[in-house]
C-alpha cells in the first residue's frame, strides 16, 4: 500500500511528544500497539493521526491495557516486524512484566517513555521513577534532554536495537511535560534521509519465515534459564556499547549532531561537577557557565545512556574531579539514589579521591531552580576545599519542611 511522504521545514517547532511521533513515522514501523497515558498520549495520538492521514503504511493496534500494548509489540516483533510504542508511569508499571519478556526473547522493540512520577499520591508530572522502575529489565535505555534529542534518539534506538549482534529492546526516555509538552526548535531530517539512516528492517528468527519454523517464548527452568540470562547480560555488557558508539558516529556524519554515552560539559578542568539526567542537564549547564564567571570551576555530566551503564566513561569523566553531586529524580525507597550507587561503583577500587554526595530532587515535577543549582555548586566547592564531604551523603533539594539528610 502506498503512503504519503511529509514535507518538513529544516527547523520545526515541536514538543518532545510530537518529535518522537514524527521520528516513529519516518522509521516506517510495521506495527505500533499502544494504549495512551499522560504525558505520553500525544505520541501515539500523533502517530495514529499520521496513520489515518495516510502517512503511515504499518499497522496501528488499539489494545485494552499497557500490558496488552507491549504484548502486541512482542508478538509483532517475534513475527518479524519493526515495532514501537510509548507509555508513562502507571502504564509502564503495568507493562513491566512484558518488558522482561521482550528483552529475554531478544526482540528489538523501541519504547518511548515520557517520564512521570508513580502514584501514590497520583501525579501526572515529570520525575524519573518510571525510568528507574525498569532499570534492571534488560532494555537498553537512552535519555533525551530536549525535544531535539527525543527525535534523534529514536532513530539511534532502532538502529542499535535491531542490530543482529545486539537484538535487545531499547527505551528512549524524555522528561514528562518539561520535554514532552515543551515546544522548541527541532532540526529535522527529510523522510528519505531519516529512513535510509535506520534502514530496512532485517528479520532474525522470525515466525513468518515459514521455511525455518521456530518456537518463541519457551520455558527453561533451572537447567537453562541461567545460561540464557548470562548470555543476555554478556551481550548487553560487551556488544551494545560499541554499537552505540558506531551509530552515534554514523548519526553525526549524517546530521552533524554528536552524541556521547556520557555527555561532558566543561569537565576538562572542573573541580566540582553535577551528574544528572533529563532537562536538568541543560539547566545545570547554564548554571555551571554562570558559576565559572564567578570563578568556580564547575562542570556537568549528563547521562545519555542509562543502560548499559557506561561505567568506564563515567569513571573517566569523574576520576579527577574533587567533588561530585549525583542528582536522582526518583524516590530512593530506602537506599542511596541509583546514580549515587552507579557512580560510586564506577570509581570504587580505583585511585580516585573524588568526594561523592547524593541529592534527591524534583519529585512529582517539582521545579529544579537555577538557585538550587547555585547552592549545590557552592556546597560542592566547600566539600572540595575541605577535602571531605561536609554534609550527610544523601540530601533532598526543594522539599518543604525540616531539612532531610541521611547516610
Amino acid at each position, binding site marked *: 500500500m502506498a503512503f504519503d511522504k511529509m514535507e518538513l521545514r529544516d*527547523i520545526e*517547532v515541536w*514538543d518532545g511528544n510530537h518529535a518522537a511521533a514524527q521520528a516513529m513515522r519516518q522509521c516506517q514501523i510495521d506495527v505500533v500497539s499502544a494504549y495512551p497515558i*499522560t504525558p505520553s498520549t500525544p505520541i501515539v495520538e500523533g502517530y495514529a493521526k499520521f496513520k489515518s492521514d495516510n502517512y503511515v503504511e504499518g499497522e496501528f493496534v488499539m489494545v485494552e491495557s499497557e500490558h496488552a500494548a507491549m504484548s502486541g509489540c512482542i508478538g509483532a516483533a517475534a513475527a518479524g516486524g519493526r515495532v514501537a510504542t510509548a507509555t508513562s508511569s502507571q502504564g509502564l508499571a503495568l507493562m513491566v512484566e512484558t518488558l522482561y519478556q521482550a528483552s529475554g526473547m531478544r526482540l528489538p522493540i523501541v519504547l518511548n517513555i515520557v517520564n512521570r512520577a508513580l502514584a501514590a499520591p497520583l*501525579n*501526572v*508530572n515529570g520525575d524519573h521513577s518510571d525510568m528507574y522502575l525498569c532499570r534492571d529489565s534488560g532494555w537498553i535505555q537512552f535519555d533525551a534532554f530536549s525535544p531535539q534529542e527525543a527525535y534523534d534518539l529514536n532513530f539511534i534506538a532502532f538502529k542499535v536495537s535491531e542490530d543482529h549482534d545486539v537484538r535487545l529492546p531499547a527505551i528512549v526516555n524524555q*522528561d514528562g*511535560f*518539561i520535554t514532552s*509538552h*515543551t*515546544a*522548541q*526548535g527541532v532540526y529535522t531530517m527529510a523522510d528519505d534521509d531519516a529512513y535510509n539512516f535506520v534502514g530496512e528492517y532485517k528479520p532474525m528468527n522470525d515466525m513468518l519465515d515459514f521455511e525455518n519454523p521456530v518456537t518463541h517464548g519457551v520455558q527453561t527452568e533451572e537447567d537453562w534459564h541461567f545460561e540464557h540470562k548470562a548470555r543476555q547480560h554478556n551481550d548487553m555488557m560487551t556488544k551494545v556499547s560499541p554499537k552505540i558508539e558506531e551509530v552515534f558516529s554514523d548519526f553525526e556524519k549524517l546530521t552533524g549532531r554528536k552524541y556521547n554515552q556520557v555527555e561532558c560539559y566543561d569537565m576538562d578542568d572542573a573541580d566540582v561537577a553535577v551528574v544528572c539526567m533529563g*532537562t*536538568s542537564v*541543560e*539547566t545545570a*549547564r*547554564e548554571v555551571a557557565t554562570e558559576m565559572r564567571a564567578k570563578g568556580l570551576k564547575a562542570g556537568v555530566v549528563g547521562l545519555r545512556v542509562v543502560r548499559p551503564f557506561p561505567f568506564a566513561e563515567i569513571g573517566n569523566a569523574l576520576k579527577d574531579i574533587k567533588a561530585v553531586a549525583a542528582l536522582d529524580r526518583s524516590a530512593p525507597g530506602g537506599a542511596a539514589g541509583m546514580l549515587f550507587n552507579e557512580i560510586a561503583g564506577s570509581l570504587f577500587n580505583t585511585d580516585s579521591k573524588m568526594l561523592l554526595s547524593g541529592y534527591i530532587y524534583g519529585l512529582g*515535577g517539582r*521545579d*529544579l*531552580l*537555577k538557585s538550587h543549582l547555585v547552592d549545590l555548586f557552592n556546597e560542592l566547592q566547600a566539600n572540595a576545599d575541605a577535602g571531605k564531604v561536609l554534609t550527610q551523603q544523601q540530601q533532598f533539594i526543594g522539599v518543604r519542611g525540616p531539612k532531610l539528610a541521611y547516610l
Partner: protein
Amino acid sequence: MLEIRWHSRAGQGAVTGAKGLADVISTTGKHVQAFAFYGSAKRGAAMTAYNRVDDKVIMNHEKYMEPDFVFVIDPALAITTDITINGKDTTKYIITTHLSTEELIKIQPKLEGKEVYTLDCITIANETIGRAIPNTPMLGAFMKISGMYDIEFFKESMQRVLAKLPQKIVDANMVAIQRAYDEVK
C-alpha cells in the same frame, strides 16, 4: 532572553497560542521555548503557559520565570489570581477585559504603577471567530505593544501556523489579530 507568561483557562488556547508564537519567532532564526503548566486540570481550570525567546540555544528548563510580558486572556483571572507574581519592575501586562485600564487597576490594586495594556480579546474573538478563543487576538495586541514584527508579516506567518483549520476560520483569525492590534491601549 525574552520571557512571557500566559494566564488562561484550560481550553482557551494558551498552549496553542504560545506554540504558535514560538513557531513564528523560530522562522526568524531565534531560539524558542513554549511550555505550559496544567497537570491533569479540567477545561476551565486556571493555568499558565510560557514562552522563552533568545538569540542562543535555550538551555534553562526552570519552570520558574520572571516574565518580561504577562498575557491574561481570561478576564476574571486578572482579579481572582495574582498575575503580578514574580514580576519585574519592567514587566508589561496585556490583559483582556471589558473595563478600561483605569477601571481594572481600581479593582486590582496590585497593578498600580505597572505598565498595563488592555483590550477585550473575548469580545473580539466572539465577533470575529464566533467562539471565545482569545489566543490569537492576544498575539495581535502583543505585536502592537512589543513592536516585535510588522503586523502584516505576523499575519502571514500565522496563516501558515493555522493552515490546518478551515479557510473561513483562518480568515476570521486574521481579522481578530488586526482588530486586537488596533484596539489595544
